[in-house]
């Protein structure tokens, strides 16, 4: 019988599942849109992944849940995504000392001690500025796909300044720029800088030490990545699948249950 360990990250927008074997090697991972049905989506995703790899529920020796939906998910343990993110990133990048994570509903900066433990952390507070949701709102106002933001921003020669912190006010600011005939590329570059500067302030509060790893759904956005690297004046490392690192951390916790 195979020995499998599962990490389930039920985030505000997406659900991520990672399966590890007992040697802590990634066997499978996947993500899906969660939302209202987060927990059901997570259960189905886990079952689907197991079936795809010819595995059975009983092969799973331990499950750890993280993310906003962690509390009521049937797992052996729930661990905050801050601890999971730290565990996952330390595993992938042993030299990492700072994690910048921008997810759907929050952004956080975690300082790692050399042994991989959490030193300090800071998160955005009760405000969607500097999060994936901010980008979603702006993408929708400009009628572009979320994934295209980076490509548009890359083509811009100048970035339009978005001065409002508030997502709703920033959206009306964007609409004003649209009416003024500003090119989409420049507005989107401005949107990326707005997210980056907000998160950079958070990072300064914790202190930025290299290596800096950028994770979360927004790490796929080249526009924000470039702007953020400039703002904090540090190169950013990213894992090829930046959304699954907290789920990976959860799975690593599951191995050590």
């Amino acid at each position: 019988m195979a020995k499998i360990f599962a990490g389930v990250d039920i985030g505000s927008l997406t659900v991520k599942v990672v399966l590890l074997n007992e040697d802590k090697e990634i066997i499978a991972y996947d993500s899906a849109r969660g939302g209202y049905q987060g927990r059901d989506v997570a259960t189905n995703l886990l079952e689907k992944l197991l079936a795809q790899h010819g595995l059975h529920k009983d092969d799973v020796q331990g499950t750890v849940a993280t993310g906003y939906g962690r509390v009521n998910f049937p797992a052996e343990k729930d661990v905050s995504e801050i601890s999971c993110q730290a565990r996952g990133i330390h595993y992938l990048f042993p030299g990492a000392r700072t994690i910048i994570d921008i997810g759907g509903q929050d952004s956080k900066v975690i300082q790692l001690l050399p042994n991989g433990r959490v030193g300090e952390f800071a998160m955005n507070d009760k405000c969607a500025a500097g999060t994936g949701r901010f980008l979603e709102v702006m993408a929708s106002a400009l009628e572009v796909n979320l994934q295209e933001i980076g490509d548009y921003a890359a083509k811009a020669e100048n970035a339009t300044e978005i001065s409002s912190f508030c997502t709703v006010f920033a959206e009306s600011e964007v609409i004003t720029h649209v009416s003024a005939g500003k090119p989409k590329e420049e507005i989107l570059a401005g949107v990326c800088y707005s997210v980056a500067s907000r998160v950079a302030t958070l990072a300064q509060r914790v202190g930025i030490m290299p290596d800096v790893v950028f994770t979360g759904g927004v790490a796929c956005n080249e526009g924000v990545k470039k702007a953020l690297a400039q703002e904090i004046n540090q190169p950013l490392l990213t894992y090829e699948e930046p959304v699954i690192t907290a789920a990976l951390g959860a799975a690593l916790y599951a191995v050590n249950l």
Partner: protein
Amino acid sequence: MTKKRNYRPLRSADKLKKTMNRYYGLTTYHRYWGKIAKRPLAWVTSGAPVELLRAFKIHPAYPEQYAAIYSTNKATAQLCQVAEGEGYSQDLCSYARSNIGGVLRPDLAPLGGMPKPDLLVACNNICGTVLKWYEVIARHYDVPLLVLDTPYLTHEMTDHAKEYVLAQLKDMIIQLEKITGRPLDEKELAKQMEISSQTTSLWKKARQYCRELPSPLNAPDLFIHMAPIVVLRGTKAGLEYYKAFHEEVEERYKEKLGAVENERIRLVWDNIAIWPKVFSFNKMFTERGGCFVTDTYSGGWAIDLAPGSPLESLAATYTEVFLNRSPEFRYRQLVELIREYNADGFVMHSNRSCKPYSLVQEVIRRRVTEETGVPGLMIEADMADPRAYAEEPIRNRVQAFLETFDD
């Protein structure tokens, strides 16, 4: 199935309830006895020199304390909306907003709101908001407002500041003599200060048992059982209450009974309680063995009266309150508490309402961690307005913070 309790209830809670109910009863029905007994009712700020007022037989009522009661009774949001509807900004302190809301709509306020005051006494040692807030109340009821202006202390107390406050106290006495029709009874003032000093000393001693492991008290105990030290300081009822409270805490200390089952993480709390969530917030800590062994807030009433003549003592004591002190003082205070109480960490409530308490916390947090090596968590919320409390993000931070103490 009985719900698992992570904390040990205090049996003094019954006596507390009786003591406070009697005070609320007297306050609510003041209109029936106040005039006959020639004892005016004053609304006073938490940092007002109440011993002097009591020497004039004034019955004090505390809008801040009523605001906390409004909040634990889940009335604050509605009362704030009443005030906001009248044009008061959402950025204004929620104690002020809910108090003004309760003045405008007493039918929405727990305890039927506060009884009409005969005079107001505001001291700005706790914040600047009280000045404008009390001016609004003074206009509304058309009653006199006495203000005690305590200069902010950037370092230690100065002779100049002390003389300035002393001169105001002397002036206040003249005004109080006019308002109450009584001369100042110096013996009575000395007696008030003696009772006040004994009460403070019992509150202080009881708190100090929490230096031991396990701590006999946790933050909700401190927050709930601080009510008499605020509103009944200088009264026999207050003194009697703290004798009983002290005795119970001493007993717990002797029997090594902790407030929290399996105390594992000892924490210091900074800022006013989050009244609308005082128990549910704390549960996130107790269920993981976290105990708040002391705090800067209710500890503000555990400070001995300063030496000197009664008036000199009042001038110094009320000017030297911690909220009227420099970030340097506050930093040292927190470091000392962490060391004295063997704390593993500290939690700061960045309180949207209380600017003087919250504004400098980030600087203090960093310096305290540098000095002690002990981690500090910042929580954003509000002391009374539940609309400023985001359950999930707070749970997330608290859990992550407590996980850093795991192996």
